[in-house]
């Protein structure tokens, strides 16, 4: 065992730092640091910069234009990006659809979609969840009925993240209603501009518009947009869900968040001393930092193992649960640090071109606290993850 970076790893870290220093637009990193609202254009600019460098797809094989990084390199890149306040890369095309296409798509689909994902030609969103289904994906009701060269799709998806920006959606649809729940599901690619597709915003409790309902009314989808075999979609969805997810632990994000809390607690004065010196606040901070130090190593251990071909399996669920607990705890610390200034609503009155009020970064701590309750709900709730861990390790 060796916990130190090797010379090569240090060189790689320096290369990443130099790149971020030179290429990450300052206006974008300022927004990320201040937790401001990123526009679609902001996200696309950064996507293009990474693509130009060839660093957009750490998890893709080289043949498709991936980075061919090992686990430690991916970790370094994650930490440095967060440290430099780079935006996160939208995962739907790159990290979610692409692996499915690579494994189950036909040659034509690979040739067509994969380069467009890298180039940012298509913005993808995900159509898994349905109203009333919660984490019980297999109960989905959206129907696709074969009609000649097309499927006719009817139904509704929900919690579709950034669906308002999307050109395409990859969907789970029911193609055979007469079989057991997990059978009869297919994996379909749908152009959002097709007549009958409607996106309706869902406003989250912090006022943010980031998820949507997507309604399908007699939407005609060419059969060539089916991925893999009809009625085998559940297999592909499971593959996607259990596929290696380097970023699932959110280590870099948590480290950046904790740094921000430390800055605020260093400047806020409580009883005549910086809040960071208050033993009760310091204890909360130290405990989450200690948990994060351990999880960071857990994360590296797991992705190292994954790198040499061992499936991460149940460990991804462990990282998801612990990772979200830590991130949410850091969000909680941030709101505490802000004191009474956690109360204002981060509207245009206190953000944007107006001078911020309260300590630096305080404007959005509460919004982020509430918004990030989603971390333990969406993408397979922590209850689902705990169920997976128990089932895999105890059987039954």
């Amino acid at each position: 065992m060796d916990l130190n970076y090797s010379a090569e790893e240090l060189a790689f870290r320096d290369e990443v730092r130099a790149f971020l220093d030179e290429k990450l637009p300052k206006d974008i990193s300022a927004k990320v640091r201040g937790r401001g609202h990123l526009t679609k254009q902001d996200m696309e600019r950064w996507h293009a910069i990474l693509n130009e460098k060839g660093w957009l797809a750490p998890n893709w094989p080289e043949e498709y234009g991936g980075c061919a990084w090992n686990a430690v390199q991916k970790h370094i890149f994650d930490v440095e990006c967060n440290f430099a306040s780079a935006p996160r890369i939208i995962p739907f095309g790159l990290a979610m659809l692409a692996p499915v296409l690579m494994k189950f798509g036909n040659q034509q689909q690979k040739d067509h979609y994969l380069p467009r994902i890298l180039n940012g030609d298509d913005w993808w969103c995900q159509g898994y969840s349905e109203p009333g289904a919660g984490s019980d994906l297999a109960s989905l009701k959206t129907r696709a009925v074969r009609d000649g060269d097309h499927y006719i799709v009817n139904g509704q998806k929900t919690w579709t993240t950034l669906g308002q920006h999307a050109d395409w959606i990859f969907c789970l649809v029911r193609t055979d209603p007469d079989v057991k729940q997990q059978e009869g599901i297919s994996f379909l690619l749908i152009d959002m501009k097709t007549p009958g597709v409607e996106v309706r915003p869902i406003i989250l409790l912090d006022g943010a518009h980031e998820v949507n309902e997507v309604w399908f009314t007699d939407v005609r989808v060419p059969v060539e947009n089916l991925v893999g075999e009809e009625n085998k979609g559940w297999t592909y969805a499971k593959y996607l869900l259990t596929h290696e997810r380097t970023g699932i632990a959110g280590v870099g994000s948590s480290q950046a968040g904790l740094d921000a809390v430390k800055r605020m607690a260093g400047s806020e004065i409580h009883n005549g001393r910086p809040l960071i010196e208050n033993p009760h606040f310091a204890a909360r901070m130290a405990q989450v930092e200690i948990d994060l130090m351990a999880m960071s190593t857990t994360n590296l251990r797991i992705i190292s193992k994954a790198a040499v071909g061992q499936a991460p399996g149940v460990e991804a669920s462990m990282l998801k649960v612990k990772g979200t607990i830590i991130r949410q705890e850091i969000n909680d610390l941030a709101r505490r640090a802000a004191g009474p200034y956690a109360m204002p609503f981060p509207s245009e009155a206190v953000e944007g071109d107006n001078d911020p009020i309260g300590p630096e970064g305080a404007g959005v701590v509460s919004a982020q606290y509430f918004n990030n309750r989603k971390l333990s709900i969406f993408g397979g709730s922590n209850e689902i993850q705990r169920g997976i861990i128990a089932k895999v390790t105890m059987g039954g």
Partner: protein
Amino acid sequence: MNFDLTEERQMLQDTLRRYLADKYDTATRNAILDSDAGMSAEIWTGLAELGVIGALFSEADGGFGGAGFDIAVVFEELGRAGVVEPLMDTAILGGGLIAALGDEDQKLLVEEIIGGGLHVAFAHGEPSSRYDLRRVETTVAADGDNVVLNGRKAVVANAEAAGQLIVSARESGAAGDADGISLFLVPADTKGFTMRGYAMMAGGRAAEVTLDNVSVPASARLGAAGEALPAIETAVVSANVALAAETMGAMESATALTKEYLMTRKQFGRPIGTFQALAHRMSDLLIELEQARSAVINAAGHLETEPRIRDMQIASARNLMGRAGRLVAEEAIQMHGGIAMTQEYELAHIAKRITMADHRFGDTDYHLERFIALSAA
């Protein structure tokens, strides 16, 4: 010792609960949240007419209540319905301070408050004071028969709606001193006020208030010069009872919504409340709700006791509410899943009320520290 509400309070509670059930549903409240004023004049008048404001004042002050359990009964119901109208700011803090310190003329305002005709804001906290009631840096200088105020006040709830602001300023001493703090009753239209208003996360509005040579007659001072801190502390004690009770009421709603959701929502063919993990976690919420109820009773029941015992009970209640409230708010959202993440669902607002209460007059840790200090005293 007994734990029964008096008949009057029971009636007040029933009346208020019925009124809010009738007039203050989610859609109405969400419309109020979206409004420019951030509150409803109609509801305000309605509450005044019901006697809800009067219940927060003693008979000597023109009301018909004013004891700890009156505050608790009213604010439990306000919390249960997620009411954002500023009863704490106008009545408990504003009205309470005027009643405690005002002269005959000033006290006439209390009548206006009880009638629903006047809003008051307590402009006390400053950008660097956090929860420290003594950290006042706003200055006051004599200028003939007038006094001139200069300074900045932070997150002043209800500032824009207020006809009168109660502004604290320092006559002498350093920022953290107990002595030397005065209060001034300043009409909102006085020259020299600048307000930067904004909505708050859990509803209602507040403002950053700048005082730039605000000149008022010396008679605007509430009580004796430099001696306002004890009255401020007493008013804040009442506000803390109100906050604790409001949080408890909101916790009641959060647990009730969650219980209902767990019983109706099905997954894998069964109500999700029958899954043991959720059932057990729901039980823990119900246990904490009983703890919260007892903490509010303890705080309200000791409002008129000697300060050390009273303050320990207050600190105890707010600390417990901070911990139990966080658990209930977070668990209620988690057990609901996605639906509770949406602004239009009742729980979203209730959870925000619970959480944001932890940022007024001291958070969980602040009250823990106070409890420790008082225990050692």
